């Protein structure tokens, strides 16, 4: 057994073995959770208040006769675009945008999309177009919903202008947020917009918590699409993520005890 593991480790890039184990474990847990769901077992799915609040926010906009504003923030808007490390947040946010656009189409609320990710324009346009199509209102889709800004400061200025002119009833700032999180967050509050923000950028979390009504913190941004869809496989993925968390917590506790006792098994394992 040890020989087989050592042989396998020969092919694995040094220092990435533990990451590979986590990935495989995640995939196995995903399969198990899906099997459990298929056999009729109930899996607890914790609530995401920010996602539950989306319908309320758009309902508010419909009642007030005001538009809804959405932005991905600046992440993924420069240096490699969607292929950068901020790209996944933009892609994950586009799934939430699809849900927001669908509700906007359902309640005849005008949607305004401000973005600076040039390579995400076709993706965004298609997501919004299909949302209108799903609601049976393809004629209501207008490509001019999407406003592109070629930089962070131009985008922030543009959003400040949009918020002042249009006074949206709700504003969604979900994606790889940078300094704009506090600027547009406060500007949205000044026009009394219902604000939902989400990011995995830890340096902006304090700002979105301070400015927003509801927040999606870190992994919640990635889990949001699964939470909205409620499809068994998607629900299974959230459950499996929680199981991996328990395993990691157990490894952390065991690691603290063993390292304190001078046994360096866990640190050896993490460095493989």
């Amino acid at each position, binding site marked *: 057994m040890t020989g087989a593991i050592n042989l396998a480790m020969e092919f694995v890039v040094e220092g990435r073995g533990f990451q590979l184990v986590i990935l495989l474990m995640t995939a196995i847990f995903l399969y198990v959770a899906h099997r459990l769901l298929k056999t009729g077992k109930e899996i607890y799915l914790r609530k995401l208040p920010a996602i539950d609040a989306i319908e309320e926010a758009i309902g508010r906009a419909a009642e007030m006769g005001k538009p809804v504003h959405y932005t991905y923030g600046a992440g993924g808007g420069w240096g490699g675009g969607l292929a950068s490390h901020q790209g996944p947040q933009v892609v994950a946010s586009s799934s939430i945008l699809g849900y927001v656009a669908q509700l906007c189409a359902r309640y005849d609320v005008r949607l305004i999309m401000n973005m600076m990710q040039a390579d995400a324009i076709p993706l965004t346009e298609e997501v919004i177009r299909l949302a209108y199509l799903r609601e049976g209102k393809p004629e209501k889709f207008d490509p001019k919903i999407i406003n592109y800004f070629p930089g962070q*400061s131009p985008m922030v200025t543009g959003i400040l202008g949009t918020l002042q002119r249009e006074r949206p009833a709700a504003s969604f700032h979900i994606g790889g947020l940078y300094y704009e999180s506090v600027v547009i967050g406060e500007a949205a509050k000044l026009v009394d917009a219902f604000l939902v923000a989400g990011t995995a950028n830890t340096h902006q979390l304090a700002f979105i918590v301070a400015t927003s009504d509801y927040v999606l913190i870190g992994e919640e941004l990635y889990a949001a699409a699964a939470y909205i869809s409620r499809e068994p496989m998607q629900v299974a*993925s959230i459950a499996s993520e929680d199981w991996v968390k328990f395993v990691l917590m157990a490894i952390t506790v065991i690691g603290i005890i063993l390292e304190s006792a001078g046994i360096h098994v866990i640190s050896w394992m993490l460095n493989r």
Partner: protein
Amino acid sequence: MASVLRRPEIYIFIVGVVMGASWLSYFFYIPELDATVKLMQTWSVGIATFALALGFLSAARIHLYYIKRRTPGMWPFSAWLLFFTAIATIAGLISETTGFYSWQFKWVYTPLGATLYATTGFYICSAAYRAFRARSTEAAVLLVAGILVMLGNCTIGEVLWKDIPVINEWLQLYGQAPFIRAILVTAALGLILYALRVMVGIERGYLGTMGEAGGG
């Protein structure tokens, strides 16, 4: 043909192959695959660069619409934007390190960007004011911690009480860091799961193809 190209299965297959190759190359020593993955990464940079033209077309479409309709309060700015874009493009094609392009970037665009960034301080103040109102126990704890950290970062803090910088350091190193790390670890896990879902085609929200309830 167009309807075939719109089929999500095609995109899911491409995404699956690209992500699978990238992961294999990341975890295993496969020199032949490394070269292919590097080539794909170069392509992505190329695509992002071409996308800038797409961005320009998207912006031009909206601003031309405003100009054509003479939208009140909008069209003069749209006209100015398109005019300046044309001037900057021509100047940039002539030389991007000297002349007008370099001048306007250095003395117009950069100071304007810096000015906007500087306003962040004022927005942080108003955000902090609302966040620091002690409406609940949690908000009160945040208020006390925030005041201590602020005082710890100002020279007056040490004058008021010599231990304030020590408390500030403790709060930042031991009070805050573990929670940030916990969020980072869970965000990384969420990203792994998201990538898995995208790779195997469970997650289709980014393609605009949703589940019954929408999303996903």
